[in-house]
């Protein structure tokens, strides 16, 4: 009896869970600014919505990682693959980068998104620059996702 499968499930849970929390908090921080701006300027809905959606990607990355792990260990549409402890720990480790960075960068990005939304409220023509500045934060979530995927790809089952 090994714990491999359990550990990989914990990995998937952390990836989807923590990154999801990060995005949820980030989107809600941005959303609070968005509702305030929209109350004054309803016609900015489009650009404000884009800005609010930006911190949502970390959750998607975490979800992506969770699905990849579950698929590889055969829990999604297939037979569960027998894993030894070593493989289980490896999957758990592979999930850590996107889980942690997803959690923290999602929140951090939400704050930048919120201020960008306020800037858009004052100067609508600056919306794209706000979007670009907000996207800069996401770079590190993307890098973390990449590291997670590379580690995941390296684990043989």
């Amino acid at each position, binding site marked *: 009896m090994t714990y491999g499968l359990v550990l990989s499930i914990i990995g998937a849970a952390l990836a989807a869970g923590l990154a999801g929390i990060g995005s949820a908090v980030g989107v809600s921080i941005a959303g609070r600014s968005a509702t305030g701006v929209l109350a004054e300027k309803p016609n900015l809905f489009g650009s404000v919505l884009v800005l609010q959606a*930006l911190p949502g990607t970390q959750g998607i990355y975490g979800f992506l990682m969770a699905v990849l792990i579950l698929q590889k260990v055969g829990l999604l549409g297939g037979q569960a693959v027998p894993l030894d402890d070593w493989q289980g720990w490896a999957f758990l480790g592979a999930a850590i980068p996107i889980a942690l960075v997803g959690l923290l960068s999602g929140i951090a990005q939400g704050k930048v998104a919120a201020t960008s939304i306020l800037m858009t409220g004052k100067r609508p023509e600056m919306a794209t620059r706000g979007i670009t500045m907000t996207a800069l934060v996401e*770079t590190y979530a993307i890098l973390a996702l990449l590291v997670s995927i590379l580690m995941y790809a390296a684990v043989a089952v």
Partner: protein
Amino acid sequence: MIVPVKKARIFVLEERKDELVRALQKASLLMIVPNSSLSVDVTSDTALLQRINKAINDLSHYGKKKSLFKHHEVTYENFMLEDERQLRLLEDVETKIENLNSLLSHIKKTEESFQRYAPFREIDINVSDLKKSSFSRYHVGHVQEDSLDNLKAFFAEKEIPYQTFSSPIYGTALFFASFYEEDEQLLGEVNKRSFSEVDLPDVNLTMSDYVSNLENDLSARKKQVGDLEIGLKDLAKSKSLLELMYDRIQAKIDRKTVAFAKTEKSFYLDGWVRADQVDELSKTVKAVTTDFDIELSDPTDGDLPPTAIKNNKFVTQFETITNMYSVPHHKELDPNPAVAIWYWIIFGIMMGDIGYGLAMLTIFGLAIWLIKPKGTLKQLVSVFFYSGITSIVAGILFGSFFGAPFDLGALIGSLFAQQWTTIILNPVNDPLIMLGFSLVFGVLHIINGLGFKFALLIRRKDYVGAIADALSWILILVGLVLFAAQLVIWTSASLLSYIGLGFAGVGALLLLFLAGRKSKNIFGKVLGGLGALYKSTSYVSDILSYSRILALSLSSAVIASTMNLLAGMIQGSVIGFILSLLVYLVGHVFNFVMSMLSAYVHDGRLQYIEFFGKFYEGGGYLFEPFSIRLKQISEISDLREERR
């Protein structure tokens, strides 16, 4: 390509001024430099504009639902025509709306009194008699249900005559009488038992007559409202007349605010004209008057001329991407052709799915065809439309159709009994190869940026700078790519890798010796050279940034296949099958929208930070010639289509 602009000063006689402005506005050739010395009063026109705007808004409540697919086109002659019907329509709408509003407020008041007095309609006494009786006082009002019994007991004890009626809104309606000596005291007692008095209306009628009068009045007014609304609905059909008028008045205001400066005998106008449209401009002026003069001159160093950009139809759409960052400076190279191609390709790779590509072609193609957007919106929609093509190509190469494996080559091959395939790389199965591809793509993009910098510095005759700041890095990057390619493909060093190392070495030496050239002393020169080499860390991070191409194409591909997996898992029964269709639909729409958003944002970032960071200055402003600005109507059919 950035077209040079020239300064133009047009002299005309006073009596030809208005005609000239009209012709210039129609021709859309000259960007007029505002002249602050003369001010023109346009308050009456702006007031008219506001009236029209209000009327259009009011009418929009009565017309058909505002259609997205509205396309309203007129000829120039009809556009300029001061049509009597427009003003009449405006006045008509205004009167009707005013009548309607006063009717509605009257109805509201009447309804309130109706609700207040209706419970008392059974009191069959003339209201004026109730008021002027000399021995007794009459009171009408309402009592809350819970104090009613208390009050009835009180009336019985004092032997006060009263009558109650049911009142649906205010509790119970009450009518009682008192002797006028006792009235004040009695009323105080009754008020304590939560009685609230209603003032009787000032009429010489019985309550029942009064209430039914109110009723009749209400129904008559409501009928009038109905008639007015029908009338407004009728007027709403000719709303386009008002829209035309709005744009015409706006154009008129624009013409009025063109301020001429004055010489002793004539008037003149300053502006910018594209160098390739100078002849057209003088032709336009000549058609108005023969007594004119145009002075043309090149912009001097002190001027800040606008940036006129001219590209083919494909590249023009991508100008919006560049302009969102910053409009090119008039003295730099136009980055748009390069931005167009890179943005187009990277967007496609990030989407990487035949199905999503087809969806983009369909949705945005329909949008261009049916909605006919204008300006930057049109450009953005076209960018997405074009990127649908690269998405399909990338999808064919990755073998993905709405997340399901799909090999176009094998399909075509099976027709000819051949083992063909068009799948060259599956990012999900071979993320490492895809990562390498993304980074190489990034290096090429950055080299392209450095090439721009090289060309720009050469054009400014800073030859040493071109070699030191641009060529050196190009050599280093090309050399390292050759070296790496050699290692990956043949796994051992050979001639090619030595050539690569040689390139990189020459580049590094150039940097080392030339980067500190501006320092006076030897320490400064050495430090400058080393500092420039240290900048290679920023190149490393720039190149690694292109790994997002892999990450985003993976994310859209994996989520798409996850949706297929989820839908497949519930397809056991008929209900499951229907539910699975819903999962397919919602899941793919979600993934499509999120992937598009990510691709739009991150593709833009790669242009703005990694690519533009190498050479782009920006800070210009667009050449926007004086023309007819259309807000309400779509197009003036016989005028050359405005570029923006």
